C-alpha cells in the first residue's frame, strides 16, 4: 500500500517557497512521438512494419532490420520489473530536490526493456503495468505501477509529479452557473479536493446550478467574470496563491456562422469569454501558479481548459463559436509553454455537444455533464494532456488525424 501523504497544513510564512525546477528536457523529434502517445493516454511504441520488432527508445530505423517503416502501435502495457534501485544522489536539480527517487528496469511484454519511474508498491521480480506519462518538463517518460492496484495510489509521491490528482488540492472552477460547472464542482469535491472555489458572473442572473454548488461542503463561491479584467485581478489577488488546479469552463454558445448570421456582437462576446477570458485568467493566475509549481506535495499542478471539439474543425452551424474556440486552443499552447517553466501542466479537454439549454437543437448524442466532469477528473489522475470527451469529439479527432480535408467538408455530424 502507498504511504499516505500527510494532509496539507497551513503554510509556514517564515519558510521560503521552493522554486520550480524541471527534469532534463531535450528530446529528439522521434522521442516526441512518445509525448504524443502520452498526451492521449495511450501506451504505444514504434513497431517495424517489415519485421514486427517493437522499438524502445524511439528511433529512425528498426534496431533489428534497419527498415525505416516504423509505425506507432498500441502494445501490451504488461511487464516484469527486473531490477530496481533508489537514487540517493543526483546532479540534476529537479531530482536533487526530490531524492530519494526509485527507478527500475522493466522487461515489457511487448519486447523491449525500459527504465521506468516506479510507484512505491512495485517490487523487483513482480508483474507491473506500464504507462507513458508526461513529466514536469512536458516530455514522455515510462512509469510502472503494480499489476493489481494497491491502496492509496493517489498518494504516490513520485507519480504525483506526473499526474494531477485533485485529492487534497485546491481547485478553481471558473463558472459555477452552468450544468457543467456544477458537475465539475461535484466531481472535484468527490475526488477529495480540499477546497473548490466556484466563480460566478452576473449576480443578477439566477442559476439553480450555482444554488446547488453553494450547498457542497468543499465549495466556496466568489464573484468572477472573465470578461472583466478587474474582476479576474481581484480574485487572483484573493485566492491566486492557493489555486493548484484551475478549470476554465466558461463558455458562450450561440448558433450562427459568417454569412447566414453575421453578428459581430455575438462573435465579440464569444471571443471575450473564450479567448480574452483565457488570456485574462492566464495573465493574473498564471504567474503565481507557475511560481508554485514545486510548493510541496500539493503545489500548483494543472490548468484545465474546457474547449469545444469544434476548435479542431469549424462547424459552420456554430461558425464564430468554433473560431473563438480555435483561438483559445492556440492560446492554450502558448500557456502550456509558459507554464511548463514552472512545471505546471496545461490539460485541454475537448467536448462535443453537451446536454444543456444552449445545445437544445444539437442532435444526439449529447454529453451528460456529470459524465464529462468525471472523465476530466480521470484524465487528471492519469496525467494525460488532451482529453477528447464523448463520441463527437472522438470522431472529430480520429477523422482529422486521418484526413483534415474530409472533416473540414463533412463536419455536419
Amino acid at each position, binding site marked *: 500500500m502507498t504511504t499516505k501523504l500527510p494532509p496539507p497544513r497551513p503554510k509556514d510564512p517564515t519558510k521560503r517557497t521552493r522554486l520550480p525546477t524541471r527534469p532534463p528536457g531535450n528530446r529528439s523529434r522521434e522521442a516526441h512521438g512518445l509525448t504524443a502517445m502520452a498526451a492521449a493516454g495511450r501506451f504505444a511504441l514504434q513497431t517495424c512494419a517489415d519485421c514486427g520488432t517493437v522499438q524502445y527508445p524511439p528511433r529512425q530505423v528498426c534496431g533489428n532490420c534497419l527498415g525505416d517503416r516504423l509505425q506507432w502501435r498500441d502494445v501490451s502495457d504488461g511487464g516484469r520489473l527486473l531490477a530496481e534501485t533508489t537514487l540517493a544522489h543526483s546532479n540534476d536539480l529537479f531530482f536533487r530536490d526530490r531524492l530519494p527517487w526509485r527507478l527500475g528496469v522493466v522487461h515489457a511484454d511487448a519486447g523491449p526493456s525500459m527504465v521506468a519511474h516506479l510507484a512505491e508498491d512495485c517490487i523487483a521480480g513482480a508483474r507491473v503495468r506500464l504507462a507513458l506519462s508526461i513529466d514536469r518538463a512536458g516530455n514522455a517518460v515510462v512509469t510502472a505501477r503494480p499489476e493489481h492496484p494497491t491502496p492509496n495510489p493517489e498518494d504516490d509521491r513520485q507519480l504525483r509529479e506526473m499526474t494531477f490528482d485533485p485529492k487534497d488540492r485546491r481547485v478553481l472552477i471558473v463558472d459555477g452557473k452552468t450544468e457543467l460547472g456544477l458537475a465539475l464542482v461535484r466531481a472535484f469535491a468527490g475526488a477529495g479536493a480540499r477546497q473548490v472555489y466556484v466563480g460566478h458572473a452576473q*449576480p*443578477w*442572473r*439566477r442559476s439553480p446550478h450555482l444554488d446547488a454548488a453553494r450547498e457542497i461542503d468543499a465549495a466556496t463561491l466568489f464573484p468572477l*467574470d472573465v*470578461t*472583466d*479584467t*478587474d*474582476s479576474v485581478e481581484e480574485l487572483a489577488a484573493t485566492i491566486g496563491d492557493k489555486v493548484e488546479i484551475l478549470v476554465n469552463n466558461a463558455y458562450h454558445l*450561440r448558433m450562427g456562422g459568417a454569412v447566414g448570421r453575421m*453578428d459581430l*456582437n*455575438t462573435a*465579440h*462576446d464569444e471571443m471575450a469569454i473564450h479567448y480574452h477570458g483565457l488570456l485574462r485568467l492566464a495573465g493574473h493566475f498564471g504567474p503565481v501558479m507557475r511560481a508554485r509549481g514545486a510548493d510541496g506535495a500539493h503545489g500548483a499542478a494543472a490548468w484545465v481548459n474546457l474547449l469545444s471539439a469544434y476548435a479542431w474543425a469549424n462547424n459552420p452551424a456554430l461558425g464564430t463559436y468554433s473560431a473563438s474556440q480555435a483561438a483559445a486552443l492556440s492560446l492554450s499552447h502558448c500557456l502550456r509553454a509558459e507554464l511548463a517553466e514552472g512545471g505546471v501542466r496545461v490539460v485541454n479537454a475537448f467536448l462535443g455537444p453537451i446536454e444543456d439549454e444552449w445545445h437544445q437543437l444539437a442532435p444526439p448524442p449529447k454529453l451528460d455533464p456529470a459524465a464529462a466532469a468525471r472523465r476530466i477528473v480521470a484524465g487528471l489522475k492519469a496525467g494525460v494532456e488532451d482529453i477528447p470527451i464523448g463520441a463527437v469529439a472522438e470522431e472529430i479527432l480520429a477523422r482529422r488525424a486521418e484526413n483534415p480535408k474530409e472533416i473540414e467538408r463533412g463536419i455536419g455530424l
Partner: protein
Amino acid sequence: MTETDDTGLLAGLLAGIAGGGIRVVDLTMTLDRHVPTIVLPPEMGQSWPFRMEEISRYDHRGPATYWNNFSCGEHTGTHFDAPIHWISGKDLPGNATDTIPPALFVAHACVVDCSEEAAADPDYLLTVDRVAAWEAEHGAIPPRSWVLMRTDWSLKSDPVQYLNMDETGSHTPGPDADLVAWLIEERDVVGFGCEAVGTDAGQAQHFAVPFPCHHMMHGNGRFGLPALTNLDQLPPTGAVVIAAPLKIRRGSGSPVRALALVEA
C-alpha cells in the same frame, strides 16, 4: 459682450456658480464594471457592460501618460435615450444623438418625489392622479420640462438589489402608461427621467403596450434619462438639467454626465 462685462446673462450664471447661489448637482452614476445594464433574455442581442483596459500608466507602454480604452453599450449607466432608440421614433426628424437640436439638452426639471411609494412597493407606478396632486402643490409642469421621478432607487449600490430580478423579470418603479400619454399631450414634456436602469418600470414588458414610456416618449420625439442619482438634492421645480449625449452618428443614446443647476 466684452470680457469685463459682468452684467450679461451668462456672467450672472457664472457668478452664481462661483459661489453666488447656484449649486451644481451631479446626477450621474460612476461608470465602472459594476454599473448595471438592462437585463434581457440571453438569446437576444446584448448591450456590452462597461469595461476598461489600461493603455498605459506611466510605464513602458507610455512613460508619461495614464489613459484607458473603455467599451460599453450606448445605454450604460446614467444615459440619454434618443427617439431613434425605439421603433416608434425611427422615422422622426432629428431623432438621433447627432441630429437632435442641442438646445434641447438643457431644460427645466420637475421632480416628483415617489421615494416613500417606491420603498413600500418596488413595482410602484407613477400615475396622472399622483402628478396632478404634485401640481396642486407646486404648480403645473411648464412646457419643455423634464419630469424626473425620484425614488431613491439609485441608493441601492448592490446591482442585484438595484435590478431586483425574479423569475418574472425586474421589479423597479416607473411611469404608468396613461401618465406617459398625459405628459406628452397635456404637458409637452421634453422627456422622462428616473433612477432605475430604464425609464420604464421593471415589469413594463408585461403591460398592454409593452414599455409605454419608451414607445410613446420616443414615438413623439421625447427623450429618456434613466439611472439618475442625487434627485433628492433637487427642488420640486426650478432646477435646470444639462444632459448632452455624445455626438455619435445615428446614435440611439449615450452615457451622459448629467448635471443640474439649482438655486440655493
